[in-house]
């Protein structure tokens, strides 16, 4: 066999008669290429898809990300405290609110950096907005 993936002179194409190891290699190769392609789109999203990130200075970026995180924690704690006051469940609302707020803060930071999906888009990566 001169060419592993091409027609092998028998009139057949494809992988029908190849040993199993080659198939697995092909499969792996294909998956690796897919992964690379999706990573490439992600990267362009992160660095070019966002006009705001393009214009922002390093200082502005730092302030943006930290404000996103702090806002998440503050709102989580605030909501927890509010529920405590209404329902008299102190201190559980505050504790749960703090933990959820921490999660929301991380989510905010990831969203703001374009590393995860936007609101209501599920697993799909952010669409480039040009």
């Amino acid at each position, binding site marked *: 066999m001169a060419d592993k993936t091409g027609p092998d002179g028998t009139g057949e194409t494809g992988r029908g008669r190849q040993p199993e190891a080659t198939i697995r290699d092909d499969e792996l190769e294909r998956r690796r290429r897919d992964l690379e392609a999706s990573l490439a789109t992600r990267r362009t999203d992160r660095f070019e898809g966002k006009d*705001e990130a393009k214009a922002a200075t390093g200082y502005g970026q730092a302030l943006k990300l930290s404000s996103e995180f702090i*806002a998440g924690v*503050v709102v989580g704690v605030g909501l927890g405290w509010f529920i405590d006051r209404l329902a008299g469940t102190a201190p559980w609302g505050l504790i749960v609110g703090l933990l*959820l707020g921490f999660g929301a803060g991380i989510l905010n930071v990831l969203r703001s950096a374009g590393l995860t999906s936007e*609101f209501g888009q*599920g697993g799909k990566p952010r*669409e480039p907005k040009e």
Partner: protein
Amino acid sequence: MAADKVDPIHQFQIHPIIPLHIGGYDVSFTNSSLFMVVTIVLASGFLYMSTASRALIPGRLQSVSEMAYEFVGNMLRDAAGKQGMQFFPLVFSLFMFVLVANLIGLFPYFFTVTSHIIVTFTLAILVIGTVLVYGFAKHGFGFLKLFVPHGVPGYLLPLVVAIEIISFVSRPVSLSVRLFANMLAGHITLKVFSGFVVSLSAFGAVGIAGSVLPLAMAVALSALELLVAFLQAYVFAVLTCMYLNDALHPSH
């Protein structure tokens, strides 16, 4: 009042110009209100005057207004689609208000309206209120799909929805904190470096020679502040557009 000269916070003090109390509430006309009025008069006056002639071939001022219009228009179309243009008046007013307020705050002895979190928070509440009201009016309870990402297993759903709701509520907070913090920090730094110039000059010839350094820093910072004033108005408007996009298309 020698102490006030080196007090970098003094510039943010609010003092009533026309004291007014209605029903136990203090609704005095303060320096903050004065500068809000100045901002609005300047912004609308400029737009009115510059577009009054409505020339087919715009003059200098008219093309500045047209640039502002197209800048905000393109931003809104990119972020929220053609449908988003119904919110153009809101976004344009917000952008102009924040921009002009930031810019006139750069003048010495002028009050910076946007350096007070209550002002920026009110603007952010206005934005998020619009998103909520419009979202529920247009999509009904379908708007709540915004908080339910696709492909999340059922047992994780309560946790994820709670986090998404907190994340949504934190948006106006981060929007307002960002603008306010940038303005506050910038003006304090500017004041501190300018204060160094004054206090160093008191130490005779060596002090005067040394005060060149903070003076140069203050000049550089002024340029940076000008950039930040534009950038923050832009960021505020862009984020407004993105949030409005969620109201228009809650599930993409």
